[in-house]
């Protein structure tokens, strides 16, 4: 099956084309669209399963699959359109097609009544295709096709309801932030080619350590530029602001793209090019500390958000920070592990939120209310109407909070342990660990707050709305259930030894991460009492956060959006997301547009070049001509005088 892995890309691609054609020709053929849209994903999932089996049966070496020569430009630069199937891509393949299938299925219910149904599935299928290219690419440029392609789909899907200006703006913002990151990736590629002479992952892993000195400027620069790309794609400081806005898209999109798959591409890339990072310890520190800071700050913002999707969005940013903290410590497997479990529970959370919004929207629609269906202040007590959703989301909440034995516990614990372990030798990592721990507390808090505001207490959205609330259809709850199960058992992938596990994922990924880890100092994980203390602490923090979150939320009265007083002090700062967006707008976007318009265009182009240089030359010529014309005064006497002057001049040259 490995040799047919391109089918996994081709199927969604064909699905995208087919759905695209339907979207233009017969946009109302919903049944066909659902069939194609979900079918191709299931097909891709089947292919992925086959691939996984073969990789598992293999001996650890990667399979490279040459499709065709993409850019055969010279002897020294020939970029093949080649796919690489190895343990890492197999895992990613499973996550993308697996979670992807579930979300596609969910979308069938969620988007049922949207006029752009076919278009939606076209975009979503296209996204999956690009995402698979990203993870399957055998070289940076090929991955880059997927890397930018998913950005494109993200752009299209965020702005899916394009008639609302804010949605289009959000899509554009997402793409631009991604592009800032892509700038980094491009520069990294240029440097890699000139220094290492190749852009293939396999060849890089092999040649880079020989060519680039350990800890050297070049390796560091390359790694940092790559990481810039990751911050863009994975919404890390300083480029994280686009992700919360991206919630403007349909909720399944948020689940698939902005939680489970695309935004984790940065983590994937760091692992893929682990060798380069391993050669640059400084860059690793930057990655880790950026990740930890992002985890911390995003969590603080999530504390005060009232939009259910915004909370989840900042939660995603925060969780991505964990992943970077993991890869920044060199615990690549832990990063991937958290990526996988996060995909499960965050997808579940988003889809659950989707159910809630769906239900709220319908109920409000029936009741003629125009309140915001996403604002948690309008919710409350939904567990009665939506028991399944409540139970499943509760599972996910416990998982993300890190309660054992749910999946999140294992993956998060692995990361914190790794950061703690690195902290033994490098104080910076201790700080990162502390930030991570604090973020964990806040995670538990804001998630339980979310649950409490949404499902517990009494409904605040109006009595006319309440009767219309109901559980989502089966096509939506079924995927939730599957994700719920995965969130529970996901930890089994990489069970640590203290529960009798054997770090399955870590060993599985070893062939991929080994070239990088070999270059770094070995990571000595805490053992014995230290380990148990850490675990106990983490559990305690999670429980504390959960309990405080639920109790404080239930105890306070929650005002409806209309009558909510203005936030003050630190709350205002958190509610306003530290006003980073406003800062960027004031600091970069506004001045740049002003500068381009006033200085460059009107100042330089129109005034200096056109009016002064070009127009000026013309006017000077005209002026001289006018002057000459005035001298031509019609008086013979003057003409003769001119003549005489000429005579004198000529004769003087001859005589003198």
């Amino acid at each position, binding site marked *: 099956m490995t040799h047919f892995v391109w089918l996994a890309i081709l199927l969604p691609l064909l699905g995208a084309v087919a759905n695209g054609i339907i979207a233009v020709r017969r946009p109302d053929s919903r049944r066909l669209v659902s069939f194609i849209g979900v079918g191709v994903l299931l097909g891709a999932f089947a292919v992925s399963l086959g691939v996984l089996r073969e990789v598992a049966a293999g001996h650890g070496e990667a399979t490279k699959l040459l499709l065709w020569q993409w850019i055969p430009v010279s002897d020294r630069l020939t970029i093949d359109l080649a796919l690489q199937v190895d343990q890492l891509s197999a895992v990613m393949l499973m996550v993308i097609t697996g979670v992807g299938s579930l979300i596609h299925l969910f979308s069938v219910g969620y988007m049922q009544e949207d006029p752009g149904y076919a278009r939606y599935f076209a975009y979503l299928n296209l996204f999956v295709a690009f995402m698979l290219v990203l993870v399957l690419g055998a070289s940076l440029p090929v991955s880059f096709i997927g890397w930018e392609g998913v950005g494109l789909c993200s752009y299209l899907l965020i702005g899916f309801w394009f008639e609302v200006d804010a949605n289009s703006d959000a899509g554009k913002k997402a793409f631009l932030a991604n592009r800032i990151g892509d700038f980094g990736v491009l520069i990294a590629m240029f440097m890699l080619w000139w220094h290492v002479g190749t852009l293939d992952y396999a060849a890089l892993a092999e040649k880079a350590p020989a060519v680039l000195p350990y800890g050297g400027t070049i390796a560091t620069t390359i790694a940092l530029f790559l990481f810039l790309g990751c911050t863009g794609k994975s919404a890390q400081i300083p480029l994280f602001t686009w992700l919360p806005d991206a919630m403007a898209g349909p909720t399944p999109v948020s689940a698939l793209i902005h939680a489970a798959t695309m935004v984790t591409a940065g983590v994937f890339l760091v692992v893929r090019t682990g060798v380069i990072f391993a050669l640059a310890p400084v860059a690793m520190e930057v990655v880790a500390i950026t990740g930890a800071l992002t985890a911390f700050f995003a969590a603080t913002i999530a504390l005060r958000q009232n939009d259910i999707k915004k909370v989840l969005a900042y939660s995603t940013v925060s969780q991505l920070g964990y992943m970077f903290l993991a890869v920044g410590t060199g615990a690549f497997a832990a990063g991937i592990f958290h990526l996988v479990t996060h995909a499960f529970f965050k997808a579940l959370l988003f889809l659950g939120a989707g159910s809630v919004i769906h239900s709220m929207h319908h109920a409000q629609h029936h009741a003629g209310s125009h309140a915001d269906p996403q604002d948690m202040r309008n919710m409350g007590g939904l567990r009665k109407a939506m028991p399944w959703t409540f139970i499943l989301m509760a599972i996910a909440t416990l998982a993300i909070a890190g309660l054992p034995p749910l999946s999140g516990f294992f993956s998060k614990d692995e990361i914190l342990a790794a950061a703690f372990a690195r902290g033994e030798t490098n104080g910076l990592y201790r700080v990162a660990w502390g930030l991570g721990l604090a973020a964990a507390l806040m995670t538990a808090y804001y998630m339980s707050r979310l649950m409490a505001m949404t499902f517990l207490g009494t409904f605040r959205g109006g009595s006319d709305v309440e009767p219309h609330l109901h559980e989502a259809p089966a096509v939506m709850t079924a995927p939730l259930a599957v994700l719920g199960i995965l969130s529970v058992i996901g930890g089994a992938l990489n069970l640590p030894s203290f529960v009798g596990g054997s770090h399955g994922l870590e060993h599985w990924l070893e062939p991929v991460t080994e070239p990088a880890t070999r270059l770094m100092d070995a990571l000595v994980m805490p053992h014995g009492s230290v380990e148990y203390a850490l675990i106990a602490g983490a559990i305690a923090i999670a429980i504390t956060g959960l309990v405080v979150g639920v109790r404080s939320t239930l105890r306070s009265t929650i005002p409806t959006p209309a009558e909510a007083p203005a936030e003050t002090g630190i709350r205002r700062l958190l509610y306003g997301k530290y006003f980073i967006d406003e800062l960027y707008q004031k600091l970069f976007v506004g001045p740049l547009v002003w500068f381009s318009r006033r200085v460059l265009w009107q100042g330089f182009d129109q005034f200096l070049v056109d009016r002064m240089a070009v127009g000026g030359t013309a006017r000077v010529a005209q002026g001289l001509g006018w002057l000459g*014309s*005035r001298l*031509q*005064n*019609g*008086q*013979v*006497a003057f003409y*003769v*005088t001119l003549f*005489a002057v000429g005579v004198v001049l000529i004769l003087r040259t001859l005589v003198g």
Partner: protein
Amino acid sequence: MLLGPSLALSAVLFALGVVGVLIRRNVVVVFMCVELMLNAVNLTLVALAQLHGTSGQIMVFFVMTVAAAEAVVGLAIILAIFRHVQTVDLKQFNLLKG
């Protein structure tokens, strides 16, 4: 024989003609100054003919003929314009300019 003085005289005459053209405003006078210039040259040619033989003198005849023709045409032209503007003041002849 008196080559130097003759040449000098003719140069002076020529210069007088030029200056006359430059400063006088009456068309007829200006025209006479031009004639003076031609005749100054004639004097030069005659003077130089002492040195180089008769060809200079032949030239003088041609010049005289030409000058006569020029005078005819010139006076006719002056007459023609006089009919339009009723003046012989050169300053008034500035319809064409720019």
